[in-house]
Structure formats: structure tokens, C-alpha cells
């Protein structure tokens, strides 16, 4: 299918999210849409999928102009979309999920399960999906769930498949499998629009790359372009992808975690007997695929999640059983993983958010009253220092872009003397330009002698920041390795292999991403 978007424009109020975007997707091509968060990728795809209506411009499929006013229109025209968050019913089987919404029935409304079963098996065989039609969705790994989503789209005869940030939730090995799936789809003539901001993946699989910045197509690139060139196109200026940092000069251990065990709300052991040590002046990165206990580990350090066993001490002081406030006061800075949820209060002003955990103490408060002048002054200074783009410090935080909202959180946490900085996914959702800046700030904090613990699922970030890497798998630390450990080895450890196993296997079976 030949898909052509021409002059697509969409604005929200005064903001032009998409400005005369032209895009041609040839049959059987993997077309990467590369751009920072907020560049307008999602808006464009939502227009293509009928979730948003363009203000002007047209969509042409196989030479015919079409109107797409709803997702069902899009499906009718052979456009399928796999969202970043899956739309599956966890307690249904794979086949049932595929059936959902267009149940084939026998007489008297009896569901024809066989048909769905056969369909899944057939597609699974044809593309090598390895999906069991009778497995419950909640029991299968995220990577397989994603394939179920793809099958769903394919059963609708999708000839153009939009994958929105499909790798965000996958392990390196699963990403590799996904790349395989994408290639097989392509061989069968399906076109793929692959939305991402990760340069390595783009280079690994794209046939063509279109870069979008601030709602405009700023250029096309070949997969042979270097990461630096792509990043520059994306950001609009030269970007230093490698964080400039001196070797760490670690001092005494600041954070000591011994035998830490966390049982989550559902009764699962989220963190399983973890020992960790972070020394002053070093960055320890906790690597792992989403959902392997890193989140709970960070929350337990802050006292946000009750612990079942173990001790946490800061500078020799036992923190076990202390409240979150006491831990913050003891000198822990915390950048929570889900900032939109835990990091700030959207309806509060920028200034108020910048003192969310500082407002009680001088100069911002005296225990009874707030010193609004000081809060304002502080905000002005932080906005300047961290280049937070806001109309004014009294504007609600909800008026800021996602990246700037995150800067507010980091600015707040770094604006007081720290012994330990715990940052979960410190640059998730931040544009490349800001990543550079935030990474530098974190390294600077380390150089000031703060112990830094980073939780990240992105190997790029870990490679850029870490002095040592602790890999977590199913709540356990499977190994603590030096920062220069090869990607493939880290990837295997993230899938549960021990240090030595990972080393051996990685040499024998290099992955697509690992070899770039």
C-alpha cells in the first residue's frame, strides 16, 4: 500500500502541533518517524489513525484521497496501530482478545472460538510470532503481549502498521525479536511506521528515516547516518551524546542496603534480599527491564513502600522505619519514576512545585507561615539555572511541557545539599537536548561528593552515567559489573543470566543492537 500524507496541519489553539507535514510511505518499507517528545509524532499518527482530525492537508492511499474520521475508518483503509500501552484484556486468552469486538458466533450466539484459535495459529506460524492462542494475556511476557497486539492489527488486514514507541517496555532480547518480526512483516509487504526517539534502534531497522522537530519535517536521513547526525537533526543543534565525565573518585560508602526485601501489594516478592552499596562520589546504576523490582527498591529507600526485611543505612545512620520526611531531611534527594504521578502537583504553580519538599524550612517557611517572596525568588533562580521554559513562575505546572516539568523535579531535588541522590529513569520523556543537560547535572552532583543511585531501563543512559552497574532481575541483583561491560552481556543479565553465563553467551550470539 502506498500511503501519502501531504500538507497535514493540526493546531491546538496557538500551538501548531503539525505544520504542513508531507510523508510518503512506500509498500513494504520500514519508515522511522524520529523526533523528540512533543515534536508532533503522536499527533501525526493520531490523525492517520482517525483519533484527531487534521485542520488541513490530505491523506492519499494508493492514489485515492481518503477521509479518516475514526479508528474504524483507519482499519477499513488497512491502517493498524499498536499503542504504547496495550489494549488487551488481561484475564482473556490471546484468542479471545483477538476475537474481541467482532465475535464470530454460531447460531444462538455461541462464540466460535475455533476460528479465532485457527487465525492466531496461522498468523503466528506465518510470521514466527510463537504465540499460544490459549494462553492468558496476563501470564505472557510483555514482548509477547505486544505481538498479540500486532496480530490483532494483522487480522484486520492492516497493510500499514503504526508502532508507537514499541521498544519502551522490552528487554534488549525482546527488542531483537521485535526487529525480526518487523522484518518478516516487511517481507510480506506490510509497511511499518515506527515511532521512536532511540537512535540505535532507528539505525538498526529503518529503511527510511523522517525526522520531525517542532511539528515540521526537518529532514530525511538514511540509516547509515551516524547517531550524532540524527541527534543533531532531531534537536536542531550539535549534541554531545557522550557525557563528559572524569573517572569517579569514590569515597566511603554512603548508602548501605542489606538483605532488603519488599513484598508488594499483591503479595509478590518485588525486591528479594538485595544488598547494595553506593559510595560518595560514584554513580551506581540499577539496570533492568521495567518491572523487575527497581521501582520498589527506590521506593523502599525513601520509605514510600514498607519493607519486609533488611536494613537501609545512610552514612552509618539506620534509616529503617523512618518516615519519608525524615529520610529526605537526612539528605536523600529523590526523582520518582512516575513524575506525573508522584513528582509534582500539576495544579500548583512552578514556584510552589519547586519547594514541594522544602517549604517548611527557612528561608521558605518558618513552621507557620510561608515566605512567598523567598519561594518566588528561589523559583526565578531555578528557572534560570535549569533553563525551565515557562511563561512565569506563578503559572500552573500543567502549562509546561513534559520535559520542563521534569526539569522542575530535578531542579528541586538538586537545590539542597544531598548525601544521596536517588533518580528513577531520570530522563524518561525528556528530549535529547535536555538529556544532555540533566546528565551533566547528575555527574556534577557526583563530583560534588554525593552518592548517586540511578535506576534506568535504558542501556544508553546507563552507559553514559554509570560508574558501576547493578543488574536486577525478578527482584534480585544478579550481579554488579563495571560500567564498560558490553551491551549484550548487560542485556543477557537483564534477562536473568549470571555474570559469567552472560559473558559466554554474548560472545557466541551477538544481537542486532549490541553490535552497532
Amino acid at each position, binding site marked *: 500500500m502506498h500511503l501519502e500524507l501531504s500538507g497535514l496541519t493540526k493546531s491546538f489553539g496557538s500551538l501548531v502541533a503539525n505544520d504542513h507535514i508531507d510523508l510518503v510511505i512506500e509498500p513494504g518499507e520500514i519508515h522511522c518517524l524520529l523526533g523528540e517528545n512533543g515534536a508532533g509524532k503522536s499527533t501525526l499518527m493520531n490523525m492517520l489513525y482517525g483519533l484527531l482530525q487534521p485542520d488541513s492537508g490530505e491523506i492519499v492511499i494508493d492514489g485515492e484521497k481518503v477521509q479518516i474520521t475514526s479508528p474504524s475508518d483507519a482499519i477499513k483503509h488497512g491502517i493498524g496501530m499498536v499503542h504504547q500501552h496495550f489494549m488487551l484484556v488481561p484475564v482473556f486468552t490471546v484468542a479471545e482478545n483477538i476475537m474481541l469486538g467482532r465475535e464470530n458466533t454460531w447460531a444462538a450466539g455461541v462464540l466460535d472460538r475455533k476460528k479465532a484459535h485457527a487465525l492466531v495459529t496461522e498468523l503466528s506460524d506465518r510470521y514466527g510470532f510463537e504465540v499460544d492462542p490459549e494462553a492468558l494475556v496476563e501470564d505472557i511476557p510483555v514482548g509477547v503481549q505486544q505481538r498479540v497486539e500486532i496480530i490483532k492489527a494483522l487480522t484486520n488486514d492492516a497493510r500499514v502498521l503504526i508502532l508507537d514507541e514499541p521498544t519502551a517496555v522490552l528487554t534488549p532480547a525482546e527488542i531483537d525479536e521485535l526487529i525480526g518480526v518487523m522484518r518478516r512483516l516487511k517481507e510480506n509487504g506490510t509497511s511499518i511506521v515506527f515511532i521512536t526517539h532511540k537512535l540505535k534502534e532507528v539505525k538498526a531497522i529503518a529503511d527510511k528515516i523522517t525526522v520531525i522537530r517542532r511539528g515540521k519535517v526537518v529532514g530525511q536521513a538514511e540509516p547509515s547516518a551516524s547517531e550524532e547526525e540524527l541527534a543533531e537533526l532531531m534537536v536542531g543543534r550539535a549534541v554531545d551524546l557522550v557525557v563528559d565525565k572524569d573517572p569517579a573518585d569514590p569515597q566511603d560508602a554512603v548508602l548501605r542496603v542489606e538483605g532488603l526485601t519488599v513484598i508488594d501489594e499483591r503479595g509478590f516478592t518485588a525486591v528479594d534480599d538485595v544488598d547494595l552499596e553506593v559510595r560518595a562520589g560514584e554513580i551506581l546504576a540499577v539496570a533492568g527491564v521495567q518491572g523487575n523490582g527497581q521501582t520498589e527498591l527506590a521506593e523502599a529507600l525513601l520509605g514510600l513502600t514498607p519493607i519486609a526485611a533488611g536494613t537501609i543505612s545512610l552514612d552509618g545512620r539506620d534509616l529503617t522505619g523512618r518516615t519519608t*520526611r525524615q529520610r529526605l531531611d537526612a539528605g536523600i534527594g529523590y526523582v520518582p519514576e512516575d513524575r506525573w504521578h508522584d513528582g509534582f502537583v500539576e495544579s500548583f504553580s512552578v514556584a510552589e512545585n519547586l519547594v514541594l519538599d522544602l517549604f517548611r524550612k527557612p528561608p521558605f517557611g518558618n513552621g507557620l507561615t510561608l515566605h512567598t517572596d523567598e519561594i518566588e525568588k528561589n523559583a526565578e533562580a531555578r528557572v534560570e539555572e535549569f533553563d525551565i521554559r515557562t511563561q512565569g513562575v506563578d503559572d500552573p505546572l500543567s502549562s509546561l511541557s513534559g520535559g520542563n516539568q521534569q526539569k522542575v523535579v530535578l531542579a528541586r531535588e538538586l537545590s539542597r545539599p544531598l548525601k544521596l541522590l536517588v533518580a528513577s529513569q531520570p530522563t524518561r520523556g525528556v528530549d535529547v537536548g535536555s538529556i544532555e543537560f540533566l546528565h551533566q547535572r547528575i555527574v556534577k552532583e557526583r563530583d560534588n561528593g554525593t552518592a548517586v543511585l540511578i535506576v534506568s531501563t535504558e542501556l544508553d543512559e546507563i552507559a553514559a552515567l554509570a560508574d558501576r552497574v547493578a543488574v536486577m532481575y525478578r527482584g534480585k541483583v544478579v550481579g554488579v559489573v563495571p560500567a564498560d561491560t558490553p551491551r549484550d552481556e548487560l542485556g543477557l543479565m537483564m534477562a536473568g543470566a549470571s555474570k559469567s553465563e552472560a559473558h559466554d553467551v554474548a560472545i557466541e550470539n551477538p544481537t542486532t543492537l549490541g553490535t552497532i
Partner: protein
Amino acid sequence: MSTETEAAPAPVPPAKEPERRSGLPSWAVQGLVSLSAIVLALLVGAILIIVGDEQVQKAVGYFGAAPMDTVSAALSAVGEAYKSLAVGALGGWTPISESLTQATPLICGGLAVSLAFRTGLFNIGAQGQLIAGAILASYVGFAWHLPPVLHLVLAIVAGLVGGAIWGGVVGLLKARTGAHEVIVTIMLNYVAIYLLAWLLTTKTFQRPGRTDPISPIVDNNAQYPKFGDTRLHLGFVLALVAAVFVWWLLNRSTIGFELRAVGANADASRTAGMSVGRAYVIAMVVAGALAGLAGTQQVLGTDLPLTDGVAASVGFDAITVALLGRGTPLGTVLAGLLFGALNAGGLQMQLITQTPLTLTTVLQAVIVLFVAAPALVRSIFRFLPKERGAGAVLAKGWNG
């Protein structure tokens, strides 16, 4: 057939879909929405008046012959009713003082609900808190005999304490056990209502020589001083002071910062080291005390003896006042004044035009209905810009 994806709207990322923003500050926008709601409510009320008016009904009988008769009868019915409503509320010092008197407990009760709102709590219990305050205040008022000033002060304090306890229990249960405040406050309302009914049959509370549920009249020394020969009393001034206090607490104190933060995002507040439970307890203690203050205004200001009707429907009207006032102290005062005026004017309207007093209740309800559905008002008055912030939160209501 293939509709599966339709049912699955894209998980719109925290999309920056900028709302239509006007140059107006948010308070002005909220004011406009409220004003539009009032206008709409008056229109709805006008229809009810027309439908219920005898002259109009007669004129409709010969509508074909003289259609203008129906129109003029309708107009005059509406005009008369609203005129007497306005005169009864604002036509001179006595009506105005009556409006302010009616507004007094509504303002304090409204503040009790607003403060809890801002902390993320739906305080349905102003009624019970008010009754608890009234019980203690009246007891101190009639059972103790103390010098002037001191007696009033102690009676007021007793009322505050009564309300604070009744509210504090809710906060404590919520903080400790997670019990939903809506359930707890509703149940505590019943407890307070029947506790009051029972107390008024006991020797301690029942006025000697009476068989009906009524207490002795509170001492002169324990009564709010009145302004001139009106019913308006010092409690009104205290209500305004309370509003200023709540404004200060919410916007200028560290505790208020915490309350607002917890109300807007409890998870972020916990992460920032705040104690969400503590915030709930503080908010409910203060809210209870405010409702208790309303109780003292009833029993030490207007009623004087304690009866089982002491709270009337003030505690419930307070919820609508707070809704209309968008959870802000100033808004609550204004809404309280409006409702007080409607109550006072409604009595007059009933006297003069036989339009039932319940019409004002309908007006109040419709106003709040429109305020709670800002999108509805906006679809009628297209010029209104979209609002942001606290008002919108209130419209969403029940947050766990």
C-alpha cells in the same frame, strides 16, 4: 464488524493539548461561569413560576383568542415574584440584615466543606459537625452562668471543640483505616441528629416544665450581641473573620500548603515527605470547628434555645454553597451571601405573591447544577472560556 479498536481510544499521553485560554484571570472566568449559572437558574425558575401561576393558567385557556394575555400574565407573574424576591433580600436595611443573618451559618458551614474539598475530602458531615457544636455551645450557654464576654467566648470555644471532635473523628478514621469520609460523615450526621433528639429528652438538656424537645434559653451573656433591633448578630463578623482565617491557612501557611498539596495530588505529597494522614486529620478538625462555629451562630445568635431543628438544612446547604464558591474562601462568602439573600427574599416572595418558598430552593439547586456542569453552561454561553484549576476539580467531585 471490526470495531474493536474503536472502543480503545489512544492512551493520549499527557498530551499538551493547550486549552482555549482567554486573557481573563481564572477567578474572572469562574465568576463568569457562576454568573451565567445564576442567570440560567433564574430562567428555569421563571418557567416554573409561569407554569404554576393561576393567572397564566387562566389566560392560556383562551390563548387562541388573545395570545398576548398569556404573555403579559406570564411576564407579570415572573416580574412580581422576582421583584418581591429582590425586595425581600435587598430592599432596605431590615431585609439586608435578614439576608446577612441567613448567610452567616451558610458561610461558616460552606468554609467547612470548602477547606475539606481543598484537602481532597468530600465533607458531607457539616450537618453533624454543626449539631455537635451547637449541643456543646448551648450547654455552656444555658447551664453555666458567667460574666459577659467570658461566657460568650467559652460558649463559642465549646462549639468549636464540639465540631472539631465530630470532624476530627472522620479525619482520624480516614487516616488510620482508610474509611471513606463520605460514608463516615453521612453516618455521623445520623448519629448527631439522633444524639441531639435524645439529649433533648434528658433532664440535663430539656427545659424544665416542657415536654417537647427544647432546651432552656442560653444566658444573655452567652448570646451574640445583635446589631440594632435586627436579627443580625456578631456571628456574621466572626464568619468573615473565619473566611479570612481559612484564606490565610490555605494560601499563606505551611500547613495549608500541605493541605492543598495533599488535596491536589496525594501521591506527590507523600513522595515529598508530607504525611497525608496528618493532613486529613488537620483538615477535618479545622473543618469541623468551622461547622461548629456555624452551630454556635444558630444557637447563640438566632435560635437561643437548642431544638432538634437547630441545624435546619444548613449543613447540607453548606455543600452547595461550597460548590458554588469553588472551594475558595472568597467564593464561599459570596455564595453564602447569595444563598442567604435567596432564603430571606424567598420568605418575602411567598408572603406577597404566594410563590412557594421552595422555588428558592429550586433556584439554589439549579445554580449549583449548572456550576457543577461547567461544560453545560459553556455550551449554552459559547463565549465563556475554558477554566482551569480548582473549580474544575470540584466539578469532578468524589475523589477517594
